[in-house]
Structure formats: C-alpha cells, structure tokens
C-alpha cells in the first residue's frame, strides 16, 4: 500500500509575503523522497524502520516530522542528511543526491544533545564547519560567527565553554553552528526534546524568527504535537511499525505566530486532529 504523495503547499499568507522570484524558487522542491525504505539487519531479525515514504518539501518551507517513538523520524532525517543510505527508493536534495548536497555544505544538522565540542568555546564551535570538509572561508555576504551568535541571542557569550552554558544556550550555539555558511537545508532532530518547557517555548518562538530571517528550508523532527503545529507550515505524521507516512497536514495558521496562538480554537482544532491521527498509528 503506497502512501499517496502530497505536495507541500506554501500557506497563502506566506506566499503573499514573498516576491515573485522567491515564490518561483520556492516552487522547486528542496527535498524529495520517493518510496524510501530503510531496513536494518540484526542478529535476530530484520527491522523495517521506514517503508514507502514519499514526500516533498518546497524550498524555503518549514516541515515538522511528527510521530511516536520508534517510528523512524530520526532515521528519515539521517537518510536526507546522507548519514544512512536508503535500502530502497530515491532521495533528492536540492535537485541532486543527498551526498552531493552534503559535499556542497548545503546541509545543517542540529542534534538532540547539542553535540558541542567541549574543548572549544561557543564561537570556536560555531566556526568548526569552516575548518573541516575542505571549506576555508565564509561565502561572501554570509553572516559571520559573531552575527550568528547574536541571531540566536548569545551576544557576549562568544568565549564561554560549553560547560559554562545552560542546556538551552548550548542548543542555541549548535543552531548557530548549523547555520554557518548559509545552509540551504536545516535538519533538526528533536533539538529541544531535552529542554524544560519554558526554555523550549522560548526557543520555538526564536526558531520561527530565525527561519523567517534566513529563509532556510527546515525539516524538524519532534514528538510534541504542539511544537510540530506551532513551528511547521506543514506537519508530516509518521506511523510506526513500520515507519510510514500517515498523513501530510497543512497548517493554515498565520505566518506571524506568537505562542499565544496555541490558545486559539483554530490551533486547538489542528492539534486535536494531529492527536487523533497519532492515535490511529
């Protein structure tokens, strides 16, 4: 049973804000997965982590990947990042293979634990991507490491070591690190999952702002219904065992969202629908 491909749409309010050139570029998918399957062979049995996963994300859009634990959300993200090869199917990132996108430094990845290098200060962690993989300098016009730390609200913390920062601040540094060099696609694997609710709310708002400022395509993995709804233009609901696309739900909330929106009837209705979909998984 193949899941029907549903193209991601740019929300009307969003499209209206874009100039025609950007809107046209946005029409080309940044990521396209066609019938992707991933199977792991273990000593006892073969596990199908993902099966028949097909979807597209338009350039510059924000897609939340929502699903229960063990539904293969993180695996799907790693397939797009060229960290795990798909067993079947095809993945296209920015018109080429996932590997080409990775080699072009077009991908930014944010991990669940910030994965900062403890021997480097905040700013040295942000500049790490410029020191490896055959990339030496920032592309012209790209924001500097200091500007990126300011973007994530960490001005003045440039020379702090990770152990001197709180969990939320560490995750901000790792977001700045993922943004250096202006990646076209930002892949985020439950980045706020280990944070307390207050910090998480705050970072959710900031991530919306960063996305609107940088216009990076974002693929955001979460198991929080509220987070998925608040952040995404679209929510892709994954079902577990095996991981497959349950439904692709467009989120028709206004582009300028504040956390208050979570109390509106419209938001609550969308969240309730997502909850029902997860319940049927």
């Amino acid at each position: 049973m193949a899941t029907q491909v549903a193209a991601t749409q740019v929300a009307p309010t969003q499209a209206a804000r874009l100039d025609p050139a950007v809107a046209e570029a946005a029409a080309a998918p940044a990521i396209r997965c066609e019938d992707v399957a991933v199977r792991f062979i273990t000593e006892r049995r073969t596990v199908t982590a993902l099966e028949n996963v097909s979807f597209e994300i338009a350039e510059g859009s924000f897609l939340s990947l929502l699903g229960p634990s063990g539904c293969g959300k993180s695996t799907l993200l790693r397939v797009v990042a060229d960290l795990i090869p798909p067993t079947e199917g095809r993945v296209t990132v920015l018109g080429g293979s996932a590997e080409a996108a990775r080699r072009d430094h077009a991908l930014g990845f944010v991990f669940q634990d910030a994965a900062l290098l403890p021997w480097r200060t905040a700013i040295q962690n942000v500049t790490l991507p410029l020191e490896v993989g055959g990339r030496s300098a920032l592309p012209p016009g790209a924001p500097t490491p200091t500007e990126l730390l300011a973007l994530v609200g960490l001005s003045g913390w440039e020379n702090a070591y990770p152990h001197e920062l709180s969990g939320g601040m560490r995750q901000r540094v790792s977001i700045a690190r993922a943004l250096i060099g202006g990646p076209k696609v930002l892949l985020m694997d439950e980045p706020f999952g280990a944070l307390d609710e207050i910090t998480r709310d705050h970072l959710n708002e900031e991530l919306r702002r960063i996305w609107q400022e940088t216009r990076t395509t974002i693929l955001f993995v979460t198991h929080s219904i509220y987070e998925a709804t608040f952040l995404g233009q679209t929510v892709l609901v994954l079902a577990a065992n095996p991981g497959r696309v349950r439904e692709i739900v467009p989120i028709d909330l206004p582009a300028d969202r504040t956390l208050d929106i979570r109390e509106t009837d419209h938001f609550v209705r969308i969240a309730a629908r997502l909850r029902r979909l997860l319940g049927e998984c």
Partner: protein
Amino acid sequence: MADVAILQGGQGIDAAEAEYRAVQRRRRMRRRIMPAAGVLSLLVLWGLLVYVLDVPPFVAPSPVAVAQTLVENAGMLLANLWPTALEAILGFLLGNIAAIAIATVFVHKKSAEEAFFPVVVLINTIPVVAKAPILVLLLGNGIEPKIAIAALICFFPTLVNMVRGLESVNPQAMELMRVLSASPREVFFKLRVPTALPYLFSALKIAASTAVIGAIVGEWIGSTVGIGALIIQATYNFDSALLYATVIVGSTFSVLFFLAITGLERLVVRWQAPVVA
C-alpha cells in the same frame, strides 16, 4: 563541603561577607596545615618507636639519622639520582610515544588491534622483575635496558587508555563530522585526539610514577650507579639510614615528576568543568 553560609538576622551584609571570607581563609589554611601535621606526627611516632623499642640501626634508622644522611650525602645521592631520572624520563617518553602511535594504528585498523592486542596483554602479564633480566641480556649493561624497562612499564596503561579515549567519541559529534564531510584526518585531529586527551593524561600520571619504578628495578641487575644500585648496596651493607635516604630521594623525584604531568594536564585540558571534590 558546605561553602554556603546562611545570612543571619540582625547582621549587616558587609559584616556577614567579611566573616564568610574569614572562615574560607581559615579553611584554606587548615587544608595546608593538616597534611603537614599528619606527616610530622608520623615522623615523631617513628622516632619514638625506634627509641623506645631500642631498634638496632641496621634494622631501622631513626628519622634523625636519615635526615643526617640526607644532608651529609646530598652530593652522592643527587649524583645517583641523575642516571635514574634520565632513564625514567627517556623511558617515559619512549613508552608513551610508542603507546600513542600504536593506539592510533589500532583505532584506524581494527584487524591490527585484533591481531596484536592479545600479544600486548600477554607481554604485560610478565612481571617487571622477570622482564628485567631478559632485557639486560638483550641490551647489555648500559642505560638501554633500564630505559627499555621504564618504557615497557609505561606502555600498557597508556595504550589501553589511549585506545579507549580515541574510541569514546560522542556518536552525535561523529555524525556531525560526517555531515560536514570531514576527512578521516580531520576527524582524528579535531575530534578523536581532543576527546582522548583526558584519558591520556590519567594514563600519563600513572606512567610518571611507574617509569621511576621501572628504572629502579632495571638498576637492581648489574648496575653500579643510580637509585636502584644504591638501594641494593645500602641493603647489603646494612646501612639502613642510607637505604631510607635513597628511598626518600627516589620517591621525591617520583612525586615531582607526577606533579609536572599534573601541571601539564591543567595547561592542556582546560575545558573540563571543575570537579567538585
């Protein structure tokens, strides 16, 4: 260790802070004085025991006699420390550099680790006192077998720790390096080596004292100079004061070597959160 004082009612904040600092100062002072007092009381106890039990000087000397020997024979003791220190330091360098190099090979070539790690374990099970004569036969009576024994004794802990350190990389940091298309060389120098440094230093601190032991044991077999040779001579001559003085010189060097490595660690490994003792 309570470093927090509760502000008492009816007390000015300035006065309370001054008092808090005074208490902290006294506490720091005490931390320095107490160990010295401990050592001193042991010396007194030792002196008393020797005096009260009337221990003959060829069995055990009094602390006063040892101190006298240390002062009177300072030149001779230092002249014998020099070769031992040289052997220990050279052996330390040789053994650890070899261990780091082989750990690097093991981490990059799993088959090499599978083939040679059991060999290394086997060699390590041979006691130093048994290895020493073998190496003396192989390398002669000069400084070489002593360096080799000191190197061998350092080698194993460093190899084991270094392999573990190089492999204990955060898996997400490893994925990050892959997303960044880092080369194996970049992964090694930017990720594996810094990760391994704290492991390496805990091995180096062990090696600093064992290298000295290795050099001394090496000198027990057919050597005429060095702390080890002096220990043997003093024992055969029933010169217990000289024996004790020699042991003190040897362990003082060990402690200084250890402290030097600890100081180096503080300079190099700066990123770890302060450990609450």
